[in-house]
């Protein structure tokens, strides 16, 4: 190990502290640093290192599958990283207690083990790499305190101090190191701020390209976006229901339009109590239908997509469910994939009575939309008539497009849409509808969610993708809120035209990942026995792989025959000659070559010297000649050896008899 005492142990303790696995870190540190007090070292053969390496590889794969199945891909890598010291610890511990103190490179790679080339001369010391890995794993735990930087600097300093060049000035070393630590600290502050600035810029640049997580309080529209509005093809929501699915899934409702942003004013999120297996959102209705929905919530919190008219949700694994006055439902402390049942009816659930916010018109749009409402003769009429006229207005002469050409920077994008281009996407239609209804005196709200239009045969479920994200209006009819979707029919086809050719394959992968996640995050009763059985089976397999042929006699036998591979010539009768002569007290010594022994035996007499030499030569060829012996020579060896044995047998008896 090329690290100073305590450095690796310190790194492991630090990792344990940061990752919340202090006990594991302490045990590993003790196991590795304990080599300084344990004098015993073991001869660990390359094949045993290979098996330990296999163990690490299997652990790594198992954790990778687990991490990617249970987390958002962007977090899975870091989640996997946290456990890496555990994954590679078997190798490092084995290296620490091995005689060589290094690991053959071929042990780490299966293809090198299978290669015909002799890689045994290449070996590496894993200590430095493992040290770096521990620090990275500690960083992946993301405990954001200054202690992290201090610990990294201290541990790195300890590692470097032990390896500083001979004759290097301690003062110069310290001065450089402290300067680097200070520079690094300033750099990390700058880097963090740089990322924040870049993210702000990127958000401005690609807004609409990647939709941020839904927020119940505000949503920024892409009304002013220039160029093609790209939407993700990934499946966001899965829905199974008996019969036709609800055409829309509601996620959030907003009541105030400000600039290019919709906000939910006076609509705080209030926790709702749990009754039995679910949460009641409104009193139960007759003729209710049930839909099972699933969606991912990588952050452990988010807004739940629901069919309009949902009055109860059940079987949701959440610590807390909150509901806003406008009807958005938020779940906290949930697994990365949530599955829940929603009961809903066609009649509207209680979304709260309209108030002044639902009639609010921003100053810069008020005049133009009021003028338009007047031109369309929208008031004074019954709300239902007004809604009908608004539908008719947007149904004629308006077109759907996700592409928008460069516009006059001074012009308002919404007014440009309504009065000039008459081409836009669902946010244009929904926002204009809401403002026009309000201008006509009908309370209205802006709703975001998903359109349900694609049935996946693979999953046997309805799926909503990122590009199915939709916006529409809610209008108050005087008695209830009515969904008003003025976006021209056929917008789905426009969105679908940009789908990737690899989509079926990606969907297959997404489905597999979803099933694994759902299995993992599903009810404990479904998962427990299977998971533990799998872990037990894996563990048993690894133990078997590790211990197979590794019993003490087997290792000793292997060591004895090492270098000869399968021992050739082990069946030579020559060994019988050796044993026979050993019985006469002429046994071959460990340090004696065959030729030297033959000379000694010949000098001792009582043996056919010529035959003995001939047999020795044949045996040597049988044992070591790459071409071996032909059948005739083999037979000669056998006969010579048997003849020598038979010659010795009487003399040995005589000798024994004589001694009596």
């Amino acid at each position: 190990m090329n690290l100073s005492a305590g450095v690796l142990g310190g790194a492991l303790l630090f990792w344990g502290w940061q990752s919340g696995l202090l006990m594991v870190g302490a045990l590993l540190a003790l196991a590795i640093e304990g080599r300084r007090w344990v004098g015993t070292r073991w001869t660990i053969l390359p094949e045993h290192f290979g098996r330990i390496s296999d163990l690490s590889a299997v652990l790594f794969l198992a954790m990778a599958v687990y991490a990617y199945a249970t987390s958002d891909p962007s977090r899975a890598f870091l989640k996997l990283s946290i456990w890496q010291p555990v994954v590679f610890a078997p190798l490092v511990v084995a290296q620490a207690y091995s005689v060589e103190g290094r690991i053959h490179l071929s042990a780490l790679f299966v293809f090198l083990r299978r290669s015909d080339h002799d890689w045994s001369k290449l070996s590496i010391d894993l200590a430095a790499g493992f040290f770096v890995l521990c620090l990275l794993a500690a960083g992946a735990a993301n405990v954001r305190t200054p202690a992290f930087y201090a610990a990294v600097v201290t541990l790195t300093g300890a590692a470097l101090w032990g390896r500083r060049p001979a004759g290097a000035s301690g003062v110069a070393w310290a001065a450089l190191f402290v300067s680097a630590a200070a520079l690094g600290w300033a750099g990390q502050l700058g880097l963090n701020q740089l990322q924040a600035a870049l993210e702000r810029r990127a958000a401005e640049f690609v807004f609409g390209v990647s939709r941020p997580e839904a927020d119940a309080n505000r949503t920024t529209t892409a009304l002013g976006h220039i160029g093609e509005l790209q939407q993700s093809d990934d499946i966001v929501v899965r829905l199974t229901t008996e019969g036709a699915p609800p055409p829309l899934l509601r996620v959030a409702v907003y009541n105030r339009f400000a600039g290019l942003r919709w906000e939910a004013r006076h609509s705080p999120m209030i926790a709702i109590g749990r009754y039995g297996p679910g949460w009641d959102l409104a009193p139960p209705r007759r003729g209710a239908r049930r839909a099972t929905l699933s969606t991912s919530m990588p952050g452990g919190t988010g807004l739940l997509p629901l069919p309009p008219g949902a009055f109860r949700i059940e079987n949701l694994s959440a610590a807390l469910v909150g509901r806003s006055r406008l009807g958005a439902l938020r779940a906290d402390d949930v697994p990365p994939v949530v599955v829940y049942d929603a009961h809903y009816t066609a009649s509207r659930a209680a979304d709260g009575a309209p108030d002044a916010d639902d009639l609010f018109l921003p100053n810069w749009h008020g005049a133009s939309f009021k003028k338009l409402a007047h031109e369309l003769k929208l008031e004074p009429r019954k709300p239902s008539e007004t809604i009908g006229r608004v539908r008719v207005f947007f149904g004629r002469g308006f077109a759907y497009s996700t592409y928008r050409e460069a516009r006059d920077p001074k012009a308002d994008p919404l007014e440009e849409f309504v009065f000039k281009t008459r081409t836009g996407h669902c946010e244009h239609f929904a926002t204009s509808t809401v403002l026009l209804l309000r201008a006509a005196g009908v309370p209205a709200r802006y709703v975001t969610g998903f359109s349900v239009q694609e049935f996946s045969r693979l999953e046997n479920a309805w799926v909503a993708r990122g590009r199915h994200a939709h916006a529409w209006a809610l209008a108050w009819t005087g008695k209830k809120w009515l969904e008003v979707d003025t976006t021209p029919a056929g917008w789905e086809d426009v969105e679908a035209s940009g789908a990737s050719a690899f989509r079926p394959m990606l969907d297959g992968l997404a489905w597999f990942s979803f099933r694994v996640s759902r299995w993992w995050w599903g009810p404990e009763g479904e998962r427990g026995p299977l998971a533990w059985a799998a872990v037990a089976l894996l563990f048993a397999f690894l133990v078997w792989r590790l211990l197979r042929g590794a019993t003490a006699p087997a290792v000793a036998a292997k060591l004895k025959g090492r270098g000869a591979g399968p021992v050739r010539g082990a069946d030579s009768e020559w060994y019988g000659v050796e044993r026979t002569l050993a019985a006469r007290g002429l046994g071959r010594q460990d340090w004696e070559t065959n030729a030297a022994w033959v000379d000694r035996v010949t000098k001792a007499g009582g043996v056919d010297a010529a035959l003995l030499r001939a047999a020795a030569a044949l045996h040597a060829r049988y044992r070591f000649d790459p071409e071996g012996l032909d059948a005739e020579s083999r037979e000669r060896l056998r006969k010579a050896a048997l003849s020598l044995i038979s010659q010795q047998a009487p003399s040995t008896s005589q000798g024994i008899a004589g001694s009596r």
Partner: protein
Amino acid sequence: MNDRLVHFFLRGGGRFFPWVRRRFTPVGQTALAGLLASAVWGVDTNQSMAYQGFTFLASLLLLAWACARLRPPKVKLSRRLPRFATAGETIRYGIAVENTGGRPLQGLIVREELADPRPSYEAFHAAEDPPDARFVWLDRFLGYSRWRRLVEIKTAGTEESAVPDLAPGGEAVVDAGLKPRVRGRLSLEAAVVAEPEPLGLARGLTARVMPESILVLPKRYPVPRLALEGSRRYQPGGVALAASVGESQEFVGLRDYRPGDPPRRIHWRSWAKTGRPIIKENQDEYFVRHALALDTFGAPGEVFEEAVSVAASFACSTLTQDSLLDLLFVGGEAFCVTAGRGQGGADRLLEVLATVNPCSGSSFDRLAASVLRRREQLSGCILVLLALDDERRALVRRLRASGLPVTALVVRPRGAREEREPGVLSVEGGKIAEGLAALR
């Protein structure tokens, strides 16, 4: 894979990695790897704290690098290089290092800089995949095996040698090692002295250009001493042609004058002693002369190199004090280099073999004609062939038919099927030593 793309990346890597090895110590290289890993781990500064490790390591390496650049060691170097090396064998030689600066130097290392070994795209594209067990399928798929082979041809294994501590004005001779991989002329461009900076991460370098070259002799295998059955043959021109200096002739004895004896052979002192004309009698020049014919009519590659090695092995083992050995091969023209009996030793043949190249613009007939022309003077012949086709078989048969003992060997590529021909030993590339052991 697209060869141009692969060549581009390998060429870039072939520049970057040696640069890293020169500029950074092993500890510094680990820090660089840590820097790279922390950049990956910490790419999102909100998700992981690894970015703090990144900035710290980057600062350390930056300061270390700046320190190393600012204070390179001031030294004077000279090299004491031998004339020859053998492919695959390490040679030891000295490099003298003198501290010409005003500060003591500690922890220095010195190493050789060889000429840039990176092959051109054309050479890379034309190269064949070497049959080497070191390379796995991925190496072959990516073309790395070809690249590595071409680089190894042009370079040699160099060592980093530690220099003892040097006081100002002090000098030390360092034991350096060089292991050429293939025969031919190896150029050494410069020697570089590196000194670690105080953090021990980067190295300050001082290079001294000292262009020199060394002739790398072919690799040799142990071969049994061949007892070719041929008898001594009369050599026209006698020893005069075999000896390097003078006109010494083999003296047999004295006899009485016979009419017609040339007067210059009269032994005057014996005549004076006996009173009758006495003639000095010389032995006719009969001695053993072998030919070692190397087939050069093949493509460059392992088989050709192995054939040269086999020829070199015979050149060393066959030559005795009392025999001549003619090395026959065809380069631009047909060459015959003779060694033995004062004509030069085996080293002369090895020097020639170190530079022999495959012959592409001619046919095997030229070598056959060259050997057959010398048949009368030869006691035996060793043929080292690259293939076993009709022309080569015909040569073996004609030589044997003339009563000349012939040892013929053909080198076949690795894994190639053995073509059996009576009296011709086939040896496989990569298993030459085992194949030659069968010669008894």
